[in-house]
């Protein structure tokens, strides 16, 4: 968006002649989950369809969503929003006079318009429920549009993020992975809303760090609202975003003419991928469409076994090196000396106990 013309052309070139994939809170959460991964940063910035790319290079991942889960989520949301959001108002303890406006319902394809109307509505900051606002966020020096599935709830002069999720809260407990995922996503929205207010010259603190999560309670679809404090997620997110290498630096470093055009052959695409440094960790498997390819590439590295394993092995890069040091086949470098001594002792103890 705000990028200089040259760079936006370069991103188009990286992507090839197809429409760009847009960011959403999930992709940003995943991006900040592994800020050191240049490959993901570049591909996401260029809006490359990573799912198709993974298929092209022969490492398809399964990132589908079950129809059952989708239909339950939709049913839950529809139920909350039926009758002018009667149930949602009830669960939020919001007044029935509160205006409800759905910005997503218009289906115009001009993002700019929708964003402007979002700004207009939120700037008014009257008591209202604003559904499907279109927000923007600065990610690695690039302004990205966010189409969040959220409701901004303006009340008492403050803005609060309301997120509707269909996982169940049973006896005040829910699956921790899902709750933390929802919290990170909500934090992305809070940050985007704050940036928006800031641009409007208003106090960003008007956006509450307490988000409302609306989930089914128990084994039914009866909704319950839970307030989550996302301050911790917000500070993590801010730190990760600031740490992310600027996209323009990364792009400038790429060889000219490099492209991930999906019409290329698998060999050409694999060769292209090799130009962008990945940082694979097992956590990628649940967050990134390209992870199976990167895992294959990372075979033999200690990082592929997980962060804790890598640390327990003294941070040594490859499995081969670990065993060579443990067996004394290789002289440790100065900063490996301590790790090597531990590995030799470990190998001696293992062999002794297994003999």
């Amino acid at each position, binding site marked *: 968006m705000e990028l200089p013309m040259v760079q936006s052309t370069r991103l188009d070139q990286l992507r090839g002649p197809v429409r760009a994939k847009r960011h959403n809170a999930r992709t940003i959460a995943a991006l900040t989950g592994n800020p050191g991964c240049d490959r993901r940063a570049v591909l996401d910035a260029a809006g490359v369809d990573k799912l198709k790319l993974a298929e092209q290079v022969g490492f398809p991942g399964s990132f589908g969503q079950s129809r059952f889960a989708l239909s339950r989520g939709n049913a839950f949301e529809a139920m909350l929003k039926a009758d002018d959001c009667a149930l949602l108002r009830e669960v939020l303890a919001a007044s029935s006079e509160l205006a409800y406006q759905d910005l997503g319902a218009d289906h115009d394809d001009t993002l700019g318009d929708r964003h402007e109307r979002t700004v207009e509505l939120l700037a008014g900051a009257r008591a209202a429920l604003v559904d499907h606002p279109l927000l923007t966020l600065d990610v690695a020096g690039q302004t990205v549009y966010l189409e969040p599935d959220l409701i901004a709830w303006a009340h008492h002069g403050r803005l609060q993020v309301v997120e509707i999720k269909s996982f169940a809260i049973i006896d005040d407990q829910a699956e921790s992975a899902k709750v933390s995922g929802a919290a990170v996503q909500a934090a992305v929205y809070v940050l985007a809303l704050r940036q928006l207010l800031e641009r409007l010259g208003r106090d960003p603190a008007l956006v509450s760090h307490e988000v409302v999560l609306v989930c089914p309670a128990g084994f039914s679809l009866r909704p319950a609202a839970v307030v989550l404090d996302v301050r911790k997620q917000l500070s993590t997110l801010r730190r990760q975003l600031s740490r992310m290498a600027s996209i323009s630096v990364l792009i400038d470093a790429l060889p000219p003419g490099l492209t991930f055009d999906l019409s290329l052959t698998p060999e050409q695409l694999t060769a292209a991928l090799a130009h962008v440094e990945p940082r694979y960790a097992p956590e990628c498997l649940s967050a990134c469409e390209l992870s199976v390819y990167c895992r294959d590439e990372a075979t033999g590295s200690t990082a592929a076994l997980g962060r804790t394993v890598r640390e327990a092995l003294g941070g040594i890069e490859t499995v081969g090196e670990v065993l060579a040091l443990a067996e004394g086949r290789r002289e440790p470098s100065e900063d490996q000396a301590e790790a090597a001594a531990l590995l030799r002792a470990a190998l001696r103890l293992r062999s002794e*106990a297994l003999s």
Partner: protein
Amino acid sequence: MSTLTALARAQAVVAARAQPVATVRHLHVHDHPMVLIPLAMAGEANAPLAVMAGTDPARPRLLTVTQPRNRDDRFAFAADLAEILLPYADSFTTDTEDVAIDRGKDVRQRCVDAPQIWVPNPGGVDFLRLFGRYTRFLKTDGEYPVVAAVPLLGRWLTFFANSAEVPGSSLLVNAVQALGLHWVTGQSSAEDAQFGVQLAWIESGAAAAREAEKGPVAGPATDPDFDNRVLAPLIERAAPELPAVLHELLLPTWERMWRALALLRGLPVGERVGQRWDADRDAFTAFSRHLAEGGPPQPRRDGAVAAAARLQRLETAAARYAVQRAFDDPLVLAEYRLTGAAFAGVVTLANPDRVDDSGKRPVLRPRIMVHTTEPVRVEPGTSLTSPARPSQKARVISVNPAGDGWDVLLELSGGMGRKLVAEPGSVPAVGEHLTLTTLTEAYRPGGSLPEPAETPWTHGGPPVVAPAPDAGDPDAAAVPDAGDPAAAAVPETAAVSGDTAGPEAPVTPEAAAGSDDGVSEAAVR
């Protein structure tokens, strides 16, 4: 992750084959376990889709729910599952043995055997816990009655799921964890959570594991692609071939479960595994008695005192389990040697007849010198134990550098008989190889907790008795808090009320939108 285990993972990568991390089996494997593979419908809170269960590898029984969102189908499924599980659990309640307690002054009864259920993965345990939570409060009368076996099933499932939280308990075992205790693979632990993949690493190696990643899944979650392509069309038209399709889906996992059991049976059993199974049998006996006496179902949430007591039991069990594993298995003990919490050496000097007569009465206090080349990170005054003589304490008198290692002077007490001369063999002799560790099996008394009625205000004060339950809504039922009967602790008479939700849930819609299942069915269709 210890360096020793991490090294084993590295070795597994290079060997393209799983590597052992234990030399003995650390859990009880039943002669007649029940294997149970649950499958749930995606998205729903806890809608069972199918279960394959049984005690005979050749005869798996498959229960399916043709319309997982239909309450009647779900109730019927629960009744069918109860018909499989309850007779199995009950079959162990009849034969009991006498166990001496209170130093032989009294006896109590204990079932000679207990049931053991195997599920593929931790998700399976969670599924059973939730299904237990769902079924144990269902009513046999009122608007949506169920047969009496259903709430009983719920209480059994809750008992099994609770015991699965106790470290070292083998009443409800998940295969992924059981295998992971004994082998590590050349992939990350996150990837090990796929039971079929993990087993393939152990049985055939890395290449087979990659192949196993293609499925089928071991439940309870289904593959989204399978949902969309196969399952959804079948469920939409209530197809009669659904059971056959699910049978085919679950059968590979069923076979793998029995292979995993056989693999584990092949390992020699650890010495202290029997003790832990005794504790499991005690818990089972106490719970079946609690049921027979008409005790109330487990509460939705423990009260403050019950929760603290439970936490204490879990911590004690975890500590005991860690020590027992180390004492049973030199490979586990090696982890402590690597960190300096244990060291191995040779006895170089021994004075087995040394008597300390400086006190009122003379006492036998032999001293030995142990030479070790391993790092010694203990201070003089520390008490050490040797797994070879667990009842004997060795107090460190001094640690001095000697040659290529250390000379550790130790003073022994206990485990040598009652006379002033040590029983033969009770004092390590010169030349004996010895491992000494700061770990100890000694009993550690827990803190004392107040009666529930005296719960301090810092912990919410004494629990309030909740209002009468709303018959139609199992969720709103107030449930008396009977503590955990398995612990045979002091029964608590408190009740849990909904207002203990804590600060994380300030918004509580008290006005429920219809009954529990009514909403879900109305809205989903």
